[in-house]
């Protein structure tokens, strides 16, 4: 389990971000949006393009080169799957403490190498195949649209991307603001998970309740439920996607696969019910549950 030591400080001015793959389509688009949202991006890398600039941010061949001119402690990676292993190792070699990997289709064994090293060196990995983090009104490290969030006290953690946007949007429309939203990604192997985020939100004075968005495949939700029962004091509402997905088929996310008895929605619902954790049957019901809690 990666420790969440850097999350509380990620949105402060002490967070200094480098965008790896800054000159690509995704890199450019999201650098612009992150800057507009207030994120402190200091540099970018794109091998062979040193000297260029994106939205006023200087581009370097490597993180090491960038570090000759800038202090950096965080990276966000917008690089195609085959090159992510090298990019993540470069970021770890450079001594960065938080690395967000947005990329989908990173080979599973490469992810394994990344998270194994990160765990040993106490580096926080978020992702891959995730939308990143947003702390409404303060900053974001990823691709979650800023205009669907409002500041508040609900902590959101999710395996998905656009479903998360849908739910954030519903919450904001109902004037229920968010403290922070963390997208842990849709891959079977990933950095921080539900439990890391639950621990963070439980300890965060700015978070009063938690929304957990899960889906079929794997046992993350079952393990999270046990953790909630034993350690989490704040109320948690769950929404699960994939109730009607057939077993044996990968439903988009590499991690959304029901195989045999493992990863089924029935198992997750059963465990959640056992521990009396409210599960919304449609996104709007999350709001109903949240309103009930705060009465």
């Amino acid at each position, binding site marked *: 389990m990666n420790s969440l030591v850097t999350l509380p400080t990620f949105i402060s001015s002490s967070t200094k971000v480098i965008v790896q793959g800054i000159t690509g389509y995704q890199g450019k688009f999201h650098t612009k949006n992150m800057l507009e949202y207030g994120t402190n991006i200091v540099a970018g890398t794109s091998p062979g393009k040193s000297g260029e600039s994106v939205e006023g941010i200087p581009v370097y061949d490597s993180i090491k080169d960038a570090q000759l001119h800038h202090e950096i402690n965080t990276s966000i990676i917008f690089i195609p799957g085959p090159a992510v292993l090298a990019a993540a190792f470069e970021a770890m070699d450079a001594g960065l403490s938080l690395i967000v990997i947005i990329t989908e289709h990173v080979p599973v064994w490469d992810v394994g190498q990344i998270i194994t090293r990160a765990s040993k060196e106490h580096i926080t990995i978020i992702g891959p195949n995730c939308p990143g983090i947003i702390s409404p009104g303060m900053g974001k490290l990823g691709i979650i649209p800023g205009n669907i969030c409002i500041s508040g006290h609900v902590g959101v953690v999710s395996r998905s991307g*656009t479903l998360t946007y849908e739910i954030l949007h519903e919450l904001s429309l109902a004037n229920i603001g968010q403290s922070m939203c963390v997208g842990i990604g849709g891959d079977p192997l990933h950095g921080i998970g539900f439990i890391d985020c639950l621990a963070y939100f439980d300890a965060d004075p700015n978070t009063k309740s938690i929304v957990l968005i899960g889906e079929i495949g794997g046992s993350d939700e079952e393990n999270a439920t046990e953790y909630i029962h034993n350690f989490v004091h704040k109320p948690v509402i769950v929404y699960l996607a994939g109730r009607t997905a057939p077993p044996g088929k990968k*439903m988009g996310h590499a991690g959304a696969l029901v195989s045999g008895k493992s990863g089924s929605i029935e198992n997750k619902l059963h465990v959640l019910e056992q521990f009396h954790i409210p599960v919304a049957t449609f996104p709007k019901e999350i709001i109903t549950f949240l309103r009930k809690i705060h009465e």
Partner: protein
Amino acid sequence: MIILLYEYEGKLLLKKYGFPLTYGKVVDNPQDAKVAAENFHSPVMVKAQILGGGRGKRGLIQMGKTPLDVHQIATSIFARNDLPEGPVRHLLIEQAIQIQQELYLSALIDRDRKQILLMFCSQGGVDIEELNQKNPKAIGKQWVDFDTKMFPYCFYDLVGSQGFDGRKKILLATMLSKLGNLLRDEDLLMAEINPFVFTTNDLPLVLDAKISVDPSAQYRHIEQQQMASLGENLNILEVYAQTNDLAFVQLNGDIGMISCGAGLSMATCDLLTQMGGTVANFLDVGGGASAEKVQSALELTFKIPQVKLVFVNIFGGITRCDQVAEGIIAALKKNLQHLPVIVRLIGTNDQIGVRILADHGIKAFTTMEPALNETITMRKQLDGGNHQ
């Protein structure tokens, strides 16, 4: 799709790593099966190559004592049309072996523990999931880190704990080491040998292999890209989806579903079903889809035989709603059956997208609930009528 290899393909991979294998011949028709049997000069096993388990119980592995026998067995297996996996396209003809002992070996990525799990059990040839439920302690398990080198000596204790010592212990530990290395070097998610046997002559042999590969790593394994199992079990619609980079799963209902993002796509399917509809397909166009990609998504959905109407649910982050709208308009030109298309559009450039659709007579929704309601209502109205 889970990317599983056929048994004979798995064995080709294992051969590269020095696993002991019996000679086998892959055939596509009963005549070749008969010829193969003639060359073996002994009883042979006729094994259907399908991407599923329990072949023995389903008559898909049979012994042929004579070449004529084999021809008959092959004919009957090729004629099978009752298999959920689809028709049998290949048979593996192998020498029949006298088995003294069956063992179980596997290596897989354990996503919960974020490590590699190696399993070894002196009870092979059984349903390992069943055994794991009934008596998990019977299966020897060892976890290693992703960066651990897996040498034979690493597994002496694991093998020893299942009652082996001496030469056999070393041999089996070596097999586990090879399996772990195979998993890593071929980017596999799972490799299972069930059973690994000792013959009555005490010779070690891999009798079956179940291998699952990582689609994200295919680009660095040319061999894997060319494997028959990967391409030939897709239907026409699935091939179209693959060609156009669309995440597509065909379902049994009649409401076509297109969305962006796996979670939202799954949730949309869930909601349509919960509201009384039946979904024809899961189709995720992914993030940042171009107009062309959205067009191909719709054209694919129109091709599904039982589709009566289509719901497009887009929440655009990097996806641009104007691109989505262009794609929908282009696809509608090919909507020969005039299937109703209901669109929900929100996010980047949504106002532009909504306007483009309005110019073509489509009123796009901004919120999901009314769009879902409209879809269900329209589906009910179509009940009892034909496609117009």
